[in-house]
């Protein structure tokens, strides 16, 4: 089964090189990727996740506001009745990983993560579902 992924940029940060690289890597790995573009609110991301019927949501955050944004998006997804795993990528220090996981982030891929590892993980989510 083909995994459908939403790659989203929450918040105001405009650095989208990483989000676009990961989106292309996932496409190349056979996933169907929807990229939201910049400055998405949690509500917009949840709506896109529902409308596009995605299996997983990947958030790219480089401004340092990852804790706030991940919490808000997870809340919005739950409020929309969506049980899709949420991944976080970007400029995320190792010491915040546990906090993000407690907040419900399935997996954190900080700057420098292997594209192959991200693709494998995402495809694995498809098999699990």
């Amino acid at each position: 089964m083909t995994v459908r992924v939403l790659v989203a940029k929450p918040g105001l940060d405009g650095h989208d090189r990483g989000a676009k690289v990961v989106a292309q890597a996932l496409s190349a790995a056979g996933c169907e990727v929807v990229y939201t573009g910049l400055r998405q609110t949690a509500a917009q991301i949840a709506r896109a996740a529902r409308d596009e019927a995605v299996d997983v949501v990947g958030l790219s955050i480089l401004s340092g506001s990852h804790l706030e944004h991940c919490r808000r998006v997870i809340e919005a997804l739950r409020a929309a009745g969506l049980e899709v795993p949420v991944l976080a990528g970007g400029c995320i220090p190792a010491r915040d990983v546990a906090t993000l996981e407690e907040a419900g982030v399935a997996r954190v891929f900080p700057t420098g993560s292997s594209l192959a590892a991200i693709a494998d993980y995402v495809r694995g989510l498809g098999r699990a579902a």
Partner: protein
Amino acid sequence: MSKPDKPLRPAVLESGIEVKPVYGPADLAESGGAQGVGAPGEFPFTRGIHRHMYRARPFTMRQYSGFGTATETRERFRYLIANGNTGLNVAFDLPTQIGLDSDDPLAEGEVGRVGMAVDTLADLEEAFDGIDLDAITVSMTINGSAAILLAMYAAMARKRGYDLRSLRGTLQNDILKEFVARGTWIFPVEPSVRLVGDTVIYCAQELPRYSPVSVCGYHIREAGANPVQEMAYAFAIAGAYIDHVVGRGLDIDEFAARLSFNFDIHGNLFEQVAKFRAGRRLWAKLVEGRGSTKPESQHLRMIAGGGGGGLTREQPENNIVRGAYYALISALSGTQTMALCSYDEAYTIPTEKAAKISLRTMQILIEEMGLCDTVDPLGGSWYVESLTNDLERRIVAEMAKLGDGIVGAIAEGRIQATVARQAFEHERALQEGRIRKVGVNCFTEAEEEPDVQFHVHDGAAARRQVERLAAVRARRDGAAVERALGRVAAEAERPVRGRETLMPAIIEAVSAYASVGEITAVLRRAWGTFKEPVAL
């Protein structure tokens, strides 16, 4: 008997140029010779825009800084000045950069995070309190809301009794590159360019020593462009601004001398030096070709420091060494201003310690390494002159691909798509080890939590900023604010008329303590919002 030569490994630059194992006079002749080099300070300025360059005055050192509230930013400014910085480079938080007030729901969690929060003139007044505006040049990294921040800076200077005609500084204000990279756009492409035009015209009339635009190849390269595209896109964008302003009735020599550039440094040392030399020569010809007769208009004035894109998260101390090489490249390239990336930038906003190491790196170059003794020390090298010729040709060819259409190509997302595709290819090459990066795919080490100190975001400072804004709103003259905002709205809705600009209306608004968010909202109602093309 000599053995047959072992085949040599290939050496290909990011620009696609194949490097020969040896360069001599014949190779230089083949690439076009050295006739086009000229003398420093003379057209076409290949060797530098001034005759004596750093021998007369070393490069300006300007570190990027600013975070939290105006009070904290002022403390950092004073620290930098006390340590020998000769210019300030102000960072603003994201809400300020995209025209939102600190109490906007969309600003939650972002206030004061990546730079200083500015809502009203009161914030700028506090940040620069006690700093002599004539003694220092202030560069503001602001784009979408640049016209408002320029209005605030001018209003503050006027209130403090400065002559606007003597003020020096730089506004980044390159909105076209924000659509390609960095992303702090607000309005659609056309009114965005008009607003840049307004600031250029206003500065030409009122702040003749101020640089209203710093055209940034830097961010486009950071987003994935190669060195040739970095220069080609920057020149095409600068050309679009020039054409717009000339179209409004100014002579190119009334304003072109105040345009400046911001470029990236990472990658091959010689390719970067040649890129700047070629760029300087080509820009002079391009401006002359547009009818300029004033040499200053033809100068490629630039800030160039290390690019964050060259730094690594792995073995972060290696970034101190990389930063030193980037500074060396910058000095060998004859840049006017240097702003080095700091070794912890792959993780966080630079800490005080990291910012100081960057500053000291530049000072060591000046004081110990002899970089300021003589102009363009690599000039005349068969290799560097050959590369300079080759790169100039490639930049011209890349610009030819664009035709006259950089603005359309950006509005439709075509440049963005090209750059994103290259970023992906680059990342793949890096991960597959085809591009070597120390600590990343060779000479790697098992690393635990890296030993860098993090810049800590202060949530309490964000709350204080929201309170400050409420207090300013409570004590300002509400009727004056309404009147001024009404004038901005009326003028923004009118068709663009020649040399008339929105700046006087915006200055009236900020002087009445109208906020960044309020003024932006008025302009957004008149012009709408940019719709981002997201196709990859």
